[in-house]
């Protein structure tokens, strides 16, 4: 197979386009957060024991009294120097907070993405090769149920069954487990099973439908019939000729989903108390800790843009029919 060369010019142009779009995103995010009601030091105002001067001093200290455009400018300059800001609430660097949460997020959400892919590809392909068979019907039904049920519901059901009724699995995720060796890994696996299953099955269900329709599109094409008529075995036709082509859009889809791995899954993290980026984001929002919200959302936005580019390039690399100009 000839590897299609992605022109360097194309990549450079794409990267140059990224810069204004990221700037635009940051302006919109910053403006939205500045316009949103609430103030990180609100809790002080309702507390009779804290005199208003303290609140005023804090606002001044964290630069909240400056006009929005000036705050944005300070933020941008700091960002360019690698400073993500300082959390109002925790009084530590935003980058430290994000880095604390990152490993757990990558492990849990990453594992669920892998689970989703591992389920979706074989099931989707099998279902498409035997359309409207019993297997296809069952797979379809489960896929529908899977992506119709919200994660907070499946999460609760799993907790009720496996934690409360059967008492097999813990439902509170703990990032630091006081154990070593095998027990350490075993405990981690045990506590990850439910959150990974909930997320993996949810995303897998949607992906099954996608894989199935993509394979169905390809399987009817003439070149597949040609391959079959040449006497190539059915198995080889599917794996070599059909799946390879059919998975091109799936790869794009998965690449575009990668930023999600970073930004976490707010609901599932909340249910299982997984200390991931999603729960950091939601608690920072509730506490009006704007620097953290800004940091997390902006990193997500960057990743979306970057993975879009990666998806574009991958697409061209996998599918020689696409031309880059």
């Amino acid at each position, binding site marked *: 197979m000839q590897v299609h060369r992605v022109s360097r010019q194309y990549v450079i142009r794409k990267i140059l386009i990224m810069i204004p779009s990221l700037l635009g995103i940051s302006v919109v995010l910053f403006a939205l957060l500045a316009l949103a009601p609430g103030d990180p030091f609100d809790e002080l105002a309702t507390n009779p024991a*804290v005199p208003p001067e303290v609140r005023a001093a804090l606002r001044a*200290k964290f630069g909240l009294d400056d006009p929005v455009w000036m705050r944005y400018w300070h933020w941008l300059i700091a960002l360019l120097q690698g400073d993500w800001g300082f959390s109002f609430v925790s009084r530590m660097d935003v980058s430290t907070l994000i880095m604390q949460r990152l490993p757990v997020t990558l492990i849990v959400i990453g594992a669920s993405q892998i689970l989703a892919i591992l389920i979706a590809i074989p099931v989707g392909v099998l279902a498409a090769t035997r359309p409207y068979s019993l297997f296809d019907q069952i797979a379809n039904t489960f896929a529908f149920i899977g992506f119709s049920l919200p994660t907070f519901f499946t999460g609760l059901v799993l907790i009720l069954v496996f934690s409360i009724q059967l008492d097999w699995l813990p439902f509170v995720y703990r990032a*630091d487990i006081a154990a070593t060796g095998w027990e350490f890994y075993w405990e981690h696996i045990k506590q990850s099973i439910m959150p990974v299953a909930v997320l993996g099955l949810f995303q897998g269900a949607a992906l099954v439908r996608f894989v199935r329709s993509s394979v169905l599109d390809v399987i009817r094409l003439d070149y597949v019939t040609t391959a079959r008529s040449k006497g190539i075995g059915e198995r080889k036709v599917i794996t070599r000729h059909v799946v390879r082509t059919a998975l091109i859009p799936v790869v794009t889809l998965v690449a575009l989903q990668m930023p999600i791995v970073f930004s976490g899954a707010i609901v599932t993290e*909340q249910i299982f108390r997984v200390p991931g980026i999603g729960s950091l984001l939601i608690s920072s929002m509730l506490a009006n800790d704007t620097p953290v919200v800004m940091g997390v959302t902006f990193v997500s936005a960057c990743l979306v843009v970057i993975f879009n580019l990666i998806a574009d390039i991958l697409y061209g690399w996998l599918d020689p029919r696409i031309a880059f100009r």
Partner: protein
Amino acid sequence: MKERELRGLVGKVKAGKLSRRGFVQAMMAVGIGAPAASQILLSSGVAMAQSPSTYKPTKRGGGGPLKLLWWQGPTLLNPHFAVGTKDQDGSRLFYEPLAAWDPDGNLKPKLAAEIPTKENGGLSADGLTVTWKLKQGVTWHDGKPFTADDVVFNWEYAKDPATAAYTIASYQDVMVAKVDQYTVTVKFKKPTPFWADAFVGTRGMLIPKHLFADYIGAKSRDAPTNLKPVGTGPYMFKDFKPGDLVTGVMNPNYHQANKPYFDSVEMKGGGDAVSAARAVLQTGEFDFAWNLQVEDEILSRLEKGGKGSVSVTPGGNIEFLLLNTTDPWTEVDGERSSLKTKHPTLSDPEVRKAIALLVDNKSIQDHIYGRTGPATRNFLYGPPRFDSKNNPIEFNVDKANDILEKAGWKKGADGIRAKDGKKLKFVYQTSINQPRQKTQAIIKQAAQKAGIDIELKSVTASVFFSSDVANPDTYTKFYTDLEMYTTTMGQPDPGTHMLQFVSTEAATKANKWQGRNITRWQSPEADKLYRETEAELDPVKRAASFIKLNDLAIQNQIVMGIVQRPTVSARTAKLNCNISGWDNNTSDLSDWFKDA
């Protein structure tokens, strides 16, 4: 019981004619709770009996890990910056004050050698000086000794406005001085009846001078110890992930013998209250869960498994109804609910009386809050020594109708009462919160039967409780006729709590609606009572003034208590812990243990 009789009894105890227990029982008989009684004895110069310790372990450690579940995890661990209970509770694993409040609202020494009293010379007769004797031989977790210098430093640190400490109010108006290595004095500018504020309880936790001395004032946020506490408490810091986890290990040099019992402690955050209750009551994954704002019905169901129990700790927090004294619908000088106006219909005392008869506290308790919200009409109900017995709950729609009819409010064709063209139509606001919406519905229904039309309004909590001066829907602006929320009482002294009724505290545009008097009630009588409490050093007389002030507000229907909001927590069956409604949940952590 009259003040004179009370004094007679106190005299008998002093002379040894009446036992402490006998005194407490006599007080109970007239409806004064044990804590109130012992406070009365204490302030009258009879030494406070330390509540007998229930701590059983005979050696330090060996209890395994203690797992605490806070559904909102601590986000910072410097007690001077800890505004929320979650942060204070987390800091309290490592830091201690001179004295803590026990569940009865009495002081228990922590880093103090003894509680100051008039007898031991700790309290001066003029109410201007408190002398604290510090416990000797206490060391910080890094081995440095704890001395009077540390105490004085905490005062200097917190009172500096540039430090922006949340504890500033407890320290800015006092003078603290070192007498010797283990003695400090706290001096007040004027006689101060409530002296146990600085260095006590939630805002009294002490940080070490040797680690914070370089980070006083504007540099306060850069102190590395902000995130790695070094205290004197029963557990030593191990790890901290904001909002997620705080861990600590047993302090082998803790200053109390045989304590603590547990080898390590972890405080996990995140999630929601219901599942936190589950993790303690149903699966036993955790030993203790905090602040379970969950319907009592659900809690009772979870409790059935027998793995743990729910405890309800009384405090002073009150869910209450406010009746606007000003007119929320007329704008004067750029503000509604201005002091220059009078409410068009609520200014009629008969209307207020009728509304009071339409609040069905009992049903609200029975159908909504259960154990987690005992009904009360008082605004001030705790500690029990301040709980007035003069405000029975009366719910009577017929009587309300009668009163309105007699006062000339006649029902119109639409069933709504009116007089001189003014209709009894009110807007009643609160924050979005299911129990609150249910309460609103109960009150609206009763009002309808009496010909009063109530329009319900609910505002997102983050807006309602914000101090955004541009937003008309905040609770302090009170741009409606009626509103309801919970006000918290962080200390067993009602001084700040009762500012609600002081004229000069009215929330207005001039003070950016930061005054504590939300109803804007202007009453010379209430002001006089409040001034009395500020100067009165005799706790008995002072309590009487607070009770009168509460009664005045309730009987004029300025506010109306709906339900008490005690602290609700869950613990596993074997865990022994004393939770105080007047201090942090973890204030007595050194004494927690599990039955073998």
